[in-house]
């Protein structure tokens, strides 16, 4: 019995040493709305900001947070949340980032948390894609491809 307990203890110590809880973030379903319809003049600069939605899954045992993002197609990316209070829609700038729970996920979907692309360098057309670099509180930065689709 003692030997079994010791063996179990050694196993637990090893387990702890080998796998400290770390976040493991994977991004999927990244898409953006088009900013321009067919047949319009592409030389006119985009008037409206762009928007990106995606899902960030965390398979690790430690929570993380999405803190910022950058892309070559926009001067600035901000994390915003739409809050609908009855009939009133409010946009809240999430300057502290957004948590991604351990063994959970963060969903950026229409009507909720989204990435706002400010001062677009060019129009986003359905069928195109562009790179977006995501920065996290703990995990290394990741560059993902965002598909433009819609409307």
């Amino acid at each position, binding site marked *: 019995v003692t030997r079994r307990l010791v063996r179990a203890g050694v196993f637990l110590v090893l387990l702890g040493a080998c796998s400290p809880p770390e976040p493991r973030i994977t991004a999927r379903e990244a898409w953006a*709305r*088009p*900013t*321009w*319809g*067919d*047949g*319009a003049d592409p030389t*006119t600069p985009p*008037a*409206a*900001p*762009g*928007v990106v939605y995606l899902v960030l899954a965390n398979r690790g045992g430690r929570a993380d947070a999405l803190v910022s993002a950058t892309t070559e197609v926009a*001067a*600035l990316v*901000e994390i*915003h949340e*739409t809050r*609908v209070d009855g*009939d*009133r*829609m*409010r*946009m809240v*700038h999430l300057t502290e980032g957004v948590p991604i729970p351990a063994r959970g996920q963060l969903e950026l979907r*229409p*009507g909720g948390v*989204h990435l*706002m*692309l*400010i*001062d677009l360098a060019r129009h986003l057309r359905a069928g195109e894609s562009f790179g977006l670099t995501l920065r996290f509180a703990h995990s290394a930065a990741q560059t993902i491809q965002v598909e433009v689709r*819609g*409307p």
Partner: protein
Amino acid sequence: MPYPEPVETAEDFTLTDQEGRPFRLADHRGRVVLLFFGFVHCPDVCPVTLSTWGKVQAALDDARDRVEFVFVTVDPERDTPESLRRHLEIYGQEFHGLTGSQEQLAGVYEAYGIFQEKVPVGSSAGGYVVDHSTRMLLIDATGRLRLRYAFDVAAEDIVHDVRRLLAERAGP
């Protein structure tokens, strides 16, 4: 009774559409009107509604000339007829995009109980979004307000209600 008795007449207004032509609501009596307030620089919520309208219009293709989709700006500073036209082209549909002077629009917001407030965003000076009421209104062919929807209402629900109002009008 499929719906409660109508309680309110939709207040008439005249604004300017995306082609620069006057648009008077009362000229569209005899048609069912969907009315929504938003703005071109709205990244998240307004596109949801416009995208839903695209589906509704496609589903009501057989009644195309009996249903009007009216988008009124809450951002007249930036939403010119030209920018409204370009924006609505993204959705490739026949929606009316309306703007006007601050005074004209203030009267419309008041009549329909629309809240709107500028909120700064971004690093660039002068960047802002407009927090606003997200309600979508359904006006029947006699010009009465019949229903109010949340911004994320399903297209099928709107199609169902519009068809009912169209049938009412065609009824005995």
